[in-house]
């Protein structure tokens, strides 16, 4: 008897479902960053707004990377629905706290997919995920550094203006 399922797709049902969940998560991240850009722009933090616009585009690119992988491997990529995106934030700092929390949850979620791949010996997907692990190293670093600025610069006086100025200079270049 032919092994029809394996011939059609490299991905197991479980791994495919997990990646489709991740596609949704990346889409949500993209929307969240867009909302953050809106809030920062409205409140006079132009550099931070630019920073979040860029982040939003990056998340969209991540979404598409997962999306195309599922299709290339013979699976069905599902275009996600994104709802309940926050519009208002209580403070400038809260925006960055949320950003870091979002990145942490993305890292954890990709780790869970990798754990599943290990269990199923899906080394192909595991190798594909490596790119994202490296990316998350950078994403978490940047988000953490941004939040750190609030402590090292301080919010008093022109502090927030100063923080906004430094946000655009954050970069991670440790290969």
């Amino acid at each position, binding site marked *: *008897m*032919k*092994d*029809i*399922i394996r*011939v*059609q*797709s490299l991905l197991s049902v479980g791994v495919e479902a997990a990646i489709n969940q991740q596609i949704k998560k990346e889409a949500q991240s993209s929307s969240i960053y867009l909302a953050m850009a809106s809030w920062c722009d409205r409140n006079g933090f132009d550099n931070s707004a630019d920073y979040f616009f860029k982040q939003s585009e990056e998340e969209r690119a991540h979404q598409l990377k997962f999306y195309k992988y599922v299709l290339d491997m013979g699976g*069905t990529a599902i275009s996600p629905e994104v709802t309940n995106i926050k519009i208002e934030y209580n403070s400038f700092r809260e925006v960055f706290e949320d950003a870091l929390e979002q990145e942490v949850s993305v890292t954890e979620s990709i780790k869970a997919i990798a754990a599943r791949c290990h269990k199923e010996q899906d080394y192909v997907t595991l190798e594909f995920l490596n790119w994202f692990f490296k990316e998350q190293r950078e994403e978490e670093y940047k988000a953490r550094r941004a939040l750190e600025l609030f402590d090292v610069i301080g919010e008093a006086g022109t502090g927030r203006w100063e923080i906004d100025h430094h946000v655009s200079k954050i970069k991670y270049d440790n290969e």
Partner: protein
Amino acid sequence: MEVTEVTYATEFTEVFTTKAGAIYQCDNESCWYIDFAGKLARFDYRCLLKLNKAINVIDIEKRLLDSSSPDMEIIFICACDDTYVLTLTQIIAFKELLQGTFVMLELNNIICTRLYRTAV
């Protein structure tokens, strides 16, 4: 079980059978034929997965306890040719049939990989 849709002779391999029905694989067409609820219906790879998902999301326990829920369920699978109208008892039987089928298909995957695909 009544057979209504076979138009030409093809070679079937029985994948799994229960008292309520059977699922056969057709290697030539790379698809499955499901003999259930009085008809024989053809499912390709994508449709079989969708059917399995559609059956599995039905909360049988909740249906049994909730007197206001309907006794019949329409199983419509997007982009697939066949629709099922099933009673709760039939849904339970269908679930069992599909579960067994996927276990057998998984077993077949292991056999194919161990026997023909791996060098060691």
